[in-house]
C-alpha cells in the first residue's frame, strides 16, 4: 500500500509571529520556516507503517512556493521515499486555500492511487483545520479526523480520535484520509547520513496547471491585526490576599 502525506511549509513554531504594521498580514520575510508540526507527525506515522511492512512506499507532496522543496527534503530525510512539489505561488505570503489544496491533492491521489492519505489535522499558520476533510469529500472517501491512534486492519482502519468528551474509536473503510493529532507519535529527527541520502531521492516539480486546477482564493483578507492585549494585573503576597481580592474586588467568588 502506498501512503501519501501532504506537508506544508509554515513559520517555525518557535518563532514569534509579527503582524505587519499596514495590516496586510503576518511578516514572513527572513523568518525561519519549518514543516508544519502536525504534518511531521503524519510523516512519522507513514514511515512507521512502512517499517512495520504495512506501507510499501511513502510519497510526500507539498503545495506552495519553490522553497517548500526544503520541507520535502526534510520529509525525505525522515524516511519518505519520493516527493512531489506543486509550485503554486511565488510569494511566501501567498497562502493557497485548503479547498484549492484539496483539489490538487485529489488530482495527485487519482494519479498515484495511494491506499491511505495521512494529513496533519491543521496547519499552524491559517489554523483552518480543513484540508483532509475537504480531500475526503472530493474523493468520496471516508475520513478519520484528529487521530491519536491508528491501526490498519485489511480493508478498514481503526482510528481513535480526540473528541470533545474524551476519545472515540471508529473504523473507516479503505482507502481513507486520516488527519493526525498531537499525541499520535513523537516524530524522529533526521540523522546526518539520512539528510545526505535524501538529496538523491526523487523530487518531481509540477504546477497547478498540470492538474487543471484553479487555485484562485475564495476569501480575500480585509485586514490582519494583533489581538487585543490583556494588561498584567497585580501580584498578591499571600493566599489570604488572593481570596480577599477575588471576593471583594473582582466579585467572582
Amino acid at each position, binding site marked *: 500500500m502506498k501512503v501519501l502525506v501532504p506537508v506544508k511549509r509554515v513559520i517555525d513554531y518557535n518563532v514569534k*509571529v509579527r*503582524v505587519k504594521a499596514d495590516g496586510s498580514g*503576518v511578516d514572513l520575510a527572513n523568518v525561519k520556516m519549518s514543516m508544519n508540526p502536525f504534518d511531521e507527525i503524519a510523516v512519522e506515522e507513514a514511515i512507521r507503517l512502512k517499517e512495520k511492512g504495512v506501507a510499501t512506499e511513502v510519497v510526500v507532496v507539498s503545495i506552495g512556493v519553490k522553497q517548500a522543496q526544503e520541507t520535502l527534503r526534510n520529509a525525505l530525510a525522515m524516511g519518505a521515499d519520493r516527493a512531489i512539489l506543486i509550485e503554486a505561488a511565488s510569494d511566501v505570503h501567498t497562502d493557497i*486555500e*485548503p*479547498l484549492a489544496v484539496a483539489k490538487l491533492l485529489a488530482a495527485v491521489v487519482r494519479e498515484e492511487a495511494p491506499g491511505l492519505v495521512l494529513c496533519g489535522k*491543521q496547519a*499552524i499558520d*491559517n*489554523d*483552518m*483545520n*480543513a*484540508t483532509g476533510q*475537504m480531500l*475526503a*469529500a472530493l474523493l468520496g*472517501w*471516508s*475520513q478519520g*479526523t*484528529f487521530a*491519536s491512534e491508528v491501526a490498519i486492519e485489511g480493508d478498514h482502519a*481503526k482510528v481513535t480520535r*480526540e473528541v*470533545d*468528551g*474524551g*476519545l*472515540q*474509536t*471508529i*473504523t473507516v*473503510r479503505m482507502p481513507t484520509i486520516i488527519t493526525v*493529532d*498531537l*499525541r499520535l507519535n513523537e516524530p524522529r529527527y533526521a540523522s546526518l547520513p539520512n539528510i545526505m541520502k535524501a538529496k538523491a531521492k526523487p523530487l518531481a516539480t509540477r504546477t497547478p496547471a498540470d492538474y487543471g486546477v484553479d487555485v484562485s*482564493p*475564495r*476569501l*480575500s*483578507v*480585509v*485586514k*490582519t*491585526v*494583533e*489581538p487585543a492585549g*490583556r494588561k*498584567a*494585573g497585580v*501580584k*498578591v503576597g499571600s*493566599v*489570604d490576599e*488572593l*481570596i480577599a481580592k*477575588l471576593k471583594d474586588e473582582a466579585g*467572582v*467568588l
Partner: protein
Amino acid sequence: MAVLLLADVVAGALATDQVAKALTAVKSLGPVTVLVAGPDAAAAAAEAATLSGVAKVLLAEDAAYAHGLSEPTAALVVSLAGDYEHIVAASGALSKSVLPRVAALLDVMVISEVLAVHDATTFDRPIYAGNAIQTVKTSDAKKVLTIRTATFDAAGEGGAAPVETVSASVDGSLSSWVEDRVASSDRPELTSAGIVVSGGRGVGSQADFALIEKLADKLNAAVGASRAAVDSGYAPNDWQVGQTGKVVAPELYVAVGISGAIQHLAGMKDSKVIVAINKDEEAPIFQVADYGLVADLFSAVPEMIEKL
C-alpha cells in the same frame, strides 16, 4: 437569507450551551433553522425549539447519524443546503469534521473558528494560534462557518419553533462507530463552566493533578490542563485548553503551574478574571493574569482549598 445551524447531539442530549451561543453569533444573518440529527433525537429537537431566536427545527432521526459520524452527517447537511445561504455550527469535534466536508461538497471554502460576524460575507477569525486576528471576506455564494462560541452570550429560552422531520438517503458504509471512552463527571462542562481551574507541567504528575481537581471541586469549577500537562499524561486530552484544545472564557480562570505558552493563552485569554499561581515569577502567564501569586503550588493550593 436563511441560516442552517447544525446542532451537536451527545447521547441523545442537545449541546444546548453551544447551540445557544452560536445562535447569538449568527442571529444578524437571518432566520435560523436548527438541524438536529441522530437516533432518539426528538427530545433534543424539542429542546432546540425552545431556544429564543430559532425559526424552525429540522429533526433527522436516523441511526446513521449516531455518534456524529462525519460522512452521513455531511451528506445530510448537503441535501438540505439548497435553502440556506449560511451553514453554521459551534466549533467542536463534530463541526470541525463535518463542515469542511460539507464545504468541499458545495465547492466553497469553509471559514473556521469565527470570532465575529461583520456582515453576510465578512468575518473575523484567529490565525497563527491567536497571534493575529484576520478579517476575511468571502466571494462564495454559500458560506460555511464554524463559530468559536466562548465570547458569545447564550440565547435564552422562550421560543416555540415548529419541528419538522427530514430524511436523506445516506451511505452508511464508509465508517462505523466502535466505542467512546468518555469519563463521566459531575463537574461542570469545560466550555460552559463559570469557573475553570487548570493545571500545567508544574503540577508534576498524574497523581498530583488530584490537587487541581480538589481545588476545582471546592469552587464547583471545571478542570482544564495545558498541552504540556496532557502530553505528559497528567490529564486526559479532553481537558486541554488552548489553540488546539478547547477555548474557554469563564468568569474566573485559575492557572496553576502553567507557564503561559501562547498556544495556551489563545484558549483562555478572554476569561473575565485570570488568576495565576506559579513559582517562577518570570512566567509569561503573569503578563495576562489579573491576580498573580508567586508561590509553590503544593503549599498555595492546599491552603486555598482549606480557606475557601
